Every structure is written in C-alpha cells, then in structure tokens.
C-alpha cells in the first residue's frame, strides 16, 4: 500500500479548492459531511420509493375481498419489508441526511467530530440496506413482520433464510446507527462555535441531539434481542424455546423496549425540522423555545417507561396495564405543549404558505390526529378492541406519514436550496403537497373505520362477509394517488437541477447559522469560525460576527479515505458468512475489518 491511504488533504485557499476529489472515487472516499449527507439522502429516498411500491402492492391485493392478485407468502414478505424499509431504510436515514448536512452548519463547525466514522456509518447503512433487500433476489425476503415476534421467527416455524436475512440485516443497520450516534453526540457537545451555548442551539440540532442519545441507549437492546434470535436459529440456544422454559414474551419486551424509543427516534427530527420552518415563514421567532426543548427531553425520557402499551393483549395483569397506560397518556402532555407552541409561533406572524410551510402546517394537523388516535388505544380496555387491527395501522400512518414524512418533506423543500444551490419549483411543490395531503387522508382515514369494524392487521385477504370491501377500495385509490404524487416530487427534483431559481445565501430569510454562507456551502463551510451571540444569529443585530467570503488564511480540509468503505465491506462479508453459516467467510470478514480498523487508526488524517 504505497500511496498514503488518505488522498492528500487539499488546502482550500482563495477560491475554494477545485474539487480534487470529483468523480466516483471522490464520492466513495469522501469524508465531507455535506457529501455524506447527500449520499444518505439519495439512498434513503430510493428506499422510501421502494417501500412505497411495496405499500402499493399491499393495497392492490387488499382492494377487493378474497383477492388473488398476490399470494400469502409474497404478501407477508411485502408487509414485512414495507415496515422494515420505511422505519430503518427510509425515515431514519433521511433524518440522518439532514443530521449530516445541517448540524455542522447550524452549530458553526467545519465538519463532524469524526469524518471517517461518518463515512463508515453511511457505507455500513448502504450495505445493510442492500443486504436486506437482496433477500428478494433469493425469494427469501423476510416474512415475520417488522416486529418479528418470537417463536414464529424460530427455526421451527420459519425454517427458511427469510428471518436470518431480516435479523442480520437489522444488526448491520444497528451498527451504522450507533456509529453515527456517537459521532453526532461528540459533534454537538464539543464542536459548537464560540458563544453557541446549549440553549442557543437551533431546535433541529436539539431534537437531533435527543434522538442520538435515544439511539445510543436503544440500539444495544435490539442488538441483544437479535443476537438471541440468531443464536436460537443457528446454535440451538433456548432463549425463546417454550419446551426449554423460555418465554416468548421476552422478545416482545426487548423489542418494544427498543421499539418505543425507536418511534421517538423517527419523530423528533421531524419535529425539529418543523420548528425551524414555522418561525422562518411566520417571520417570527419560535414561541417558547426552552419549553419545546424541555418537552423534547421529557418525551425522550418518558419514552423509555411506556413500551408495554404495545402488549396490552398479552395479559400482563391489571397492575402492569394500569401503570403502562397512565405513563403512556402522560406523554400526550409534552407533545400537546409542543403543538400549542407551534400554533403560538404562527400567531401574530406574517405567514407565507410556501411549500415548506404547507408541509409543516400539514405536520401539525395530521400529527394531532395521530396523537388523538394514539390516546384512544393508550387505554388497555379500548386497546383490546383496537390492537392488531387497521385502527392501529391508521394511527401509525398518521404519526409516521402525517408526522415524520410530512416533516421530512418540509425539510427537503426548505433546505434544498442550501444543499444544491437551486430552489425547487413552487408550483410543482404545491401540486405535490395537495396530492400528498389528499392521498394520505383518503388512504389512511378510512382505516380508522376499517379497523373498528373488525379487520385485523397483516391479513393477505379478508372475506366479503366483513362488509369492508368498499372502504378498502377507497383506501387503495388513495394509495395510488399517493404513489402518483411522488412522481411529481421526483420530477421537481430533476426540473430544479436544470431550471431551478439560483439560491442566494438566505433565500427564505431564515435566522439560523446555516444560511450565513453561500448555497451550496464551500467545502470548509465557514471561512472563519464565527462567534455567535444570539439564538437567532441572522435576525438579531450583531447576532454573529462577520464571516468573510474568502478565508483570510488557507483552511486545511481533510482529504478522503477509503478505509471506512473497506471496513464496511468487512462487516458485510462477516454477516454474509453468518447468513450462509460459512466459517471462512465470517473469519475473512473479521480479518478485513480488523486490518482496515488498524490502517484507519494509523492513517495520516489531520482534522
């Protein structure tokens, strides 16, 4: 290995170094948080469309009673992969795309704390996503549900490779999420610009910080649960074996101990994005900044004490049911406070309903409905009629689609000019918004009724005698509308790259630091690390020290490195070895990983 692994760090001097790292190799070895953010965003959006396609097929099969369009096995694979893809391969990485691109800019840093670890997180995520979806090629896509309850997932009742693909795929994605979490926590704590006290951090960075703290504590729990599952399947351990005295509820407790904090990992970043968009388009500071921040913390903490509200039907007894339902209802309070603060932010403002604002307002409207339907089955007695029915499917989609996705779309339209230097078209944006808004409601609102009228979840078909055919058909029409609306968004992406209006530094007149430099930002972000003296630096006089266009002295920008990619490939090879139970592949993977970690550690890579 003659040439030093890291391409020589380019000194971005006068006009911003001509990007010596252009070309595919530049992208594969990039350690620039902005490029990694774009990679995350593009990959996540592709998986989002894939997940959407799976949802469309599910809705087509359920459009009519006793439909034979899709068989039972394929349907079970589709709804499992739809759930797993949307949670782990779409919403989380799309949030990660914004963490990567926006957090360093918002806190006034040149890059994240550990750029190569950042690249490593992305490549492990990409390989994990490909590993999981490659199961379709072998006709062994996971079919145990995104929750994979024990002992249906045991080798006895799921003998194929389906569940192995699922469990090992999630382990890989877990490594990516944990690596990113350590990186962002260190970045947010230690790499803030002078004067950027914690209570001057933008709310998006605050919500992302809380999200990363939840990831750090939640992912080990599912990692252990998945280890138990894989050991049961591969080495005959008895964790979930009823004959040996094992308890199938152990899986449900461990999964939901991770699962409920996981849904706050999905929603908090979107809440952060909405808290950035609302003040900008109301020309008014966020109402009750500290209250929103503390509510976010409270949600993050209480989120750990409620997991068994997913298990009211397992008969845990009245004491546990009473405790878990009361604490679950408690979470409605900080969430409600946030919603009132958002409305108060808009109160007395000069509201411009540009596309980001439309999606942010839709977030408030739809998330409120999701929150209310959530409280409806926070109470165990009502939950006994609602759990595992389409009522819960409606609740999930109102908080995850109406909440997380609407928030993320708002973020996409809002930060697109900063990332790509061109604005998205407003007219196309509005068409996309209205079709998504209507499609979403037409698809998911009837599901409240379908559920209460007795249709259980995860059924590949239902009898005509249930009388739910017409409503299911309407829901399918809504889903087709949703699918079509995404095409408009993709067209808008393409259109804006050619004809989009050129963006200045601050096209929306926002207040946070990421709008203080050019769009797209130079490779070193800030020519001079500014001193921040206000929570709204660009809206207060003297809120931030002057940032010259050209750096007074040349700024060292770390070069790329390919060891993160090699390490990620090592992890993939190990997990393929685990999947096919080949010791040599597993050992080979570990060796590649160990070698690349050593090379990575001793690589000349100045920050």
């Amino acid at each position, binding site marked *: 290995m003659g040439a030093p692994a890291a391409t020589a760090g380019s000194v971005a001097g006068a006009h911003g170094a001509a990007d010596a790292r252009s070309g595919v190799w530049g992208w594969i070895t990039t350690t620039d948080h902005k490029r990694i953010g774009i990679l995350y965003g593009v990959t996540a959006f592709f998986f989002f469309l894939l997940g959407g396609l799976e949802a469309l097929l599910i809705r087509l099969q359920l459009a009519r009673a006793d439909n034979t369009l899709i068989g039972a096995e394929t349907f079970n694979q589709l709804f499992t992969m739809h759930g797993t893809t949307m949670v782990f391969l779409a919403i989380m990485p799309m949030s990660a795309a914004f963490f990567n691109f926006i957090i360093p800019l918002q806190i006034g840093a040149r890059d994240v704390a*550990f750029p190569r670890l950042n690249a490593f997180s992305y490549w492990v995520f990409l390989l994990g996503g490909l590993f999981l979806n490659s199961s379709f090629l072998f006709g062994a896509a996971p079919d145990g549900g995104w929750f994979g309850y024990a002992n249906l997932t045991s080798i006895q009742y799921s003998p194929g490779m389906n569940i192995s693909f699922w469990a090992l795929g999630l382990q890989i994605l877990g490594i990516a999420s944990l690596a990113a979490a350590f990186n962002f926590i260190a970045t947010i704590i*230690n790499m803030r610009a002078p004067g950027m006290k914690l209570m001057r951090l933008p709310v998006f960075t605050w919500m992302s910080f809380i999200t990363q703290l939840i990831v*750090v504590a939640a992912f080990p729990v599912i990692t*252990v649960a998945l280890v138990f599952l894989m050991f049961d399947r591969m080495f005959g351990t008895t*964790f979930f074996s009823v004959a040996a*005295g094992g308890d199938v509820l152990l899986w449900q407790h461990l999964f939901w101990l991770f699962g409920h904090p996981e849904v706050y990992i999905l929603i908090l970043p979107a809440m952060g994005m909405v808290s950035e968009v609302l003040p900008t388009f109301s020309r008014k500071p966020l109402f009750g900044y500290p209250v929103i921040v503390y509510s976010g913390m409270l949600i993050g903490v209480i989120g750990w004490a409620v997991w068994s509200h997913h298990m009211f039907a397992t008969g845990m007894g009245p004491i546990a049911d009473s405790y878990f339902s009361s604490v679950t209802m408690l979470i409605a309070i900080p969430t409600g406070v946030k919603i009132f603060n958002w409305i108060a932010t808009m109160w007395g403002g000069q509201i411009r309903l540009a596309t980001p604002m439309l999606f942010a307002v839709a977030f408030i409207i739809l998330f409120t409905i999701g929150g209310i339907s959530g409280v409806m089955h926070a109470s165990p007695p009502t939950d006994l009629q609602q759990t595992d029915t389409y009522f819960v499917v409606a609740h999930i989609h109102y908080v995850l689609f109406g909440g997380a996705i609407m928030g993320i779309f708002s973020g996409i339209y809002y930060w697109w000019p900063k990332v790509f230097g061109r604005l998205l078209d407003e007219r196309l944006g509005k068409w996309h918004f209205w079709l998504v808004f209507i499609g979403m409601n037409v698809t998911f609102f009837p599901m409240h009724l379908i559920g209460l009228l007795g249709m259980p979840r995860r059924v590949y078909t239902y009898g005509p005698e249930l009388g739910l055919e017409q409503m299911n058909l309407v829901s399918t029409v809504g889903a087709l509308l949703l699918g079509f609306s995404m095409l408009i968004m993709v067209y808008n992406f393409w259109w804006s790259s050619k004809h989009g209006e050129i963006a200045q530094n601050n096209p929306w007149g926002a207040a946070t630091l990421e709008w203080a430099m050019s769009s797209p930002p130079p490779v070193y972000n800030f020519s001079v690390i500014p001193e921040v003296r206000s929570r709204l630096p660009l809206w207060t006089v003297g809120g931030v020290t002057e940032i010259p266009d050209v750096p007074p002295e040349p700024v060292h920008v770390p070069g790329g490195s390919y060891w993160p990619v090699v390490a990620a490939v090592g992890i993939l090879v190990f997990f393929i070895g685990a999947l096919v139970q080949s010791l040599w592949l597993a050992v080979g993977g570990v060796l590649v990983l160990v070698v690349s970690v050593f090379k990575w550690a001793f690589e000349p890579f100045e920050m």
Partner: protein
Amino acid sequence: MTTTALAHHTSTGQDTRKIAFWTFIGSECMLFGTLIATYLSYEGKSVTGPTPQEILNIPVTSVSTFVLLMSSLAMVLALTAVVRGDKLQTRLWLTATVGFGTMFLAFQYYEFNSFVAEGLTISTNLFGSTFFVLTGCHGLHVLIGVIWLTTLLILSWRDQLGPEKAMNVEIAGLYWHFVDVVWIVIFTVVYLIQRGPVA
C-alpha cells in the same frame, strides 16, 4: 501541547474522543444490562440440565476476578507512566496488563471447556444459553481489549507512545476498566448470588 486555535477548538475543553468514548461506554452499559436482565429473568427456570449450584466453580472464578482487578491496577499504573514519559515503567505495566488479561481469558477458556465436559453447552438449557452468551460477550470484549493493549505495547516498544499520546492510553484504559467493572457485576450476580429454581 501547542494546538492551533482553529484546528482543535472545543466547546467544553474536553477531548472530543473521550466524550465519544464515554458515550460508547454508556451504550455498552445498556448492552450488558440487557444480557444481565435476561440471565436474571431466566434464572431458576431451566427445565433440565445442570443447575448453577452444581456447575459453577467459585474458587477458580474468584482467582480470575482477582486477576482482572490486578490488570486494572496495572493499566492505571501504565497510564501514569506514559504521562510521566517513563518508557520502562510504561512497557512493564502494559505487559503486566496484557498478561493478566490473557490469564483471565485462559481461565475463561478452561471454565468453558470444563462446563461443556460436565454436560452444560449453550443449547442444553436456559442457564447454559444465558450464561454462555453473557460471559462469552464479556470474554469477547476482554479479547478485543487484549489486542488493543498489545498494539499500545508495540507502539511503546517503537517509542511512539510518548506523553503526547497519553489520551490514547487513557481511552484504552477507560475501555479496560469498564470491561473489569462489568465482570465485577457478573461475578456477583451470576456466581455469588445463586437463586434456587422457580416454584
């Protein structure tokens, strides 16, 4: 240590890697917490096979616990030696740490083989499954620690572990002490407090 203001500006005055590593240790707390919770929840519920009372060997494990404690002491002394720039002491104590660590692994290897010989494998019963996964995961962490410390030892032999590299050694030390602390909990909860079978 001269650090250019721009390059190493930190908001808290603490080393960024140390913050990230303490977060990692917090995350590992949750990992071992889940493993221990599963062990304690399943304790006494095995339907067949050898029970902890029949098979756990307290004298041997007590010695291996003492060995791990000594390796923690050696680690700390190695760190003070690095900070003082005392090459000889550094190499001495790093070698001691690696030695004790390897000794602990040897005890673990011996214990695992003797259990298998007595008919307790990972798939025999709940006790076997939970015990081997918990102590195996800890053993894996000890192995990674031994490899990490051996690397530092080699660097020290090559005179590349001066006082300016103290933070690297301190972080390796945090990892090693954490692995020792986890064993302290395991030793008490698994070996010393053996609760009988569930009614």
